[in-house]
């Protein structure tokens, strides 16, 4: 193989590599925008032995209610729309009305430290796929032995 066609082949290989690098970057960016909502705002305010609450707003569509899911210690607990009364979110100009809060009742948990996470559910346009996007930050909370609602005398070795 002489130098001239070899040179052309090298240029082709370099061009192809650049084109594929751009493609991979475009797919990564497309994937990010297809599976997450950059306009989603929200905070997980409180998690304790009684409730887990906060608020969530889709700023691109502030009149809609965001569907949220509660996970405690990575286990699914409950699903609901963020449609509870939160006038503070409205007065802070984060929403167009007062109804973007969520309140979950904390399920019975054993004593000790737990972690609550609330995710917004994001369906794709075709409805064939749903992804979860974390709202705010995970909230770690402690359940004291006297607060446990398991209904069993743990230290006496009872059974449920």
């Amino acid at each position, binding site marked *: *193989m002489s*130098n*001239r066609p070899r040179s*052309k082949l*090298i240029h082709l290989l370099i061009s192809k*590599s650049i084109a*594929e690098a751009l*493609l991979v970057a475009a*797919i990564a960016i497309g*994937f990010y925008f297809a599976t997450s909502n950059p306009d989603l705002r929200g905070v997980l305010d409180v998690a304790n032995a009684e409730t887990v609450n906060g608020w969530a707003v889709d700023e691109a569509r502030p009149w809609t209610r965001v569907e949220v899911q509660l996970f405690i210690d990575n286990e699914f607990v409950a699903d609901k729309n963020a449609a509870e009364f939160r006038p503070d979110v409205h007065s802070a100009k984060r929403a167009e009305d007062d109804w973007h809060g969520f309140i979950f009742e904390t399920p019975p948990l054993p004593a000790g430290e737990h972690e609550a996470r609330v995710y917004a559910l994001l369906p794709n346009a075709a409805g064939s796929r749903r992804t979860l996007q974390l709202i705010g930050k995970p909230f770690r909370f402690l359940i004291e032995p006297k607060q446990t609602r398991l209904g069993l005398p743990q230290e006496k070795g009872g059974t449920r």
Partner: protein
Amino acid sequence: MSSMEYLKPEDSQAVGDVIGNRALAGWEIASVVSSIFIAEWLASVAVDWMRIAVVVPIGLAFVLSISSHHLRGETLRDLGFRLDNFLRAAGLLTLPMIVTAIVCLAIGWWTGERIDFLRWHISRPLAVQLILGFAWGFVQQYMLQSLVNRRAQIVWGRGWLSVLVVAAIFAGLHLPNPALTVATFVGGVIWAAVYQRAPNIFALAISHSLMTWIVVSTVPASALHHLRIGLKYFGSN
């Protein structure tokens, strides 16, 4: 000023001197393999309308392959698009195919799998499926043999080393499906070895279609996992 001469970008002679023929052939193999990996692992699982992106790496692989043949002065006959050695290639393929078919039947019998030669595609006549299998095998064998095998022979020479490299690449492209990876490694060794002795893409494509039919009909469907490869192996659709 040092004595080092810098290459002028517009000087194609100098650019061609930068890399040797073996390194260039290795680069071609790596480039084609990377395109297929991008298609399998990234583009084919891109969300929604972005799935169309799969045509880009596959298209680029073909552009590179065809351009490479042209620039290297390879003819269709060199690549294996010929009929004069068809019977020789078919003869070389016959024994390994019979042995492989017997092994597949034994696997089916040993695992208790119901052997069904009509289950390749339940809603399509077998003859149509075999023709489609031939077409798909033709494309794969072209890329695997006419490009990868020929370039592997430039890098490692003709013989078992280049045959094993081609088979390993073919098997690697079927990851993470374990049954298919093993099957394609065996098939890759047979097809690459036969191509080096009698380069004929038509015979290899027929063999590809027939062996796929045998494997699908005998090896447990649960092991083949619907022939899924790449990131799709882990998905449900």
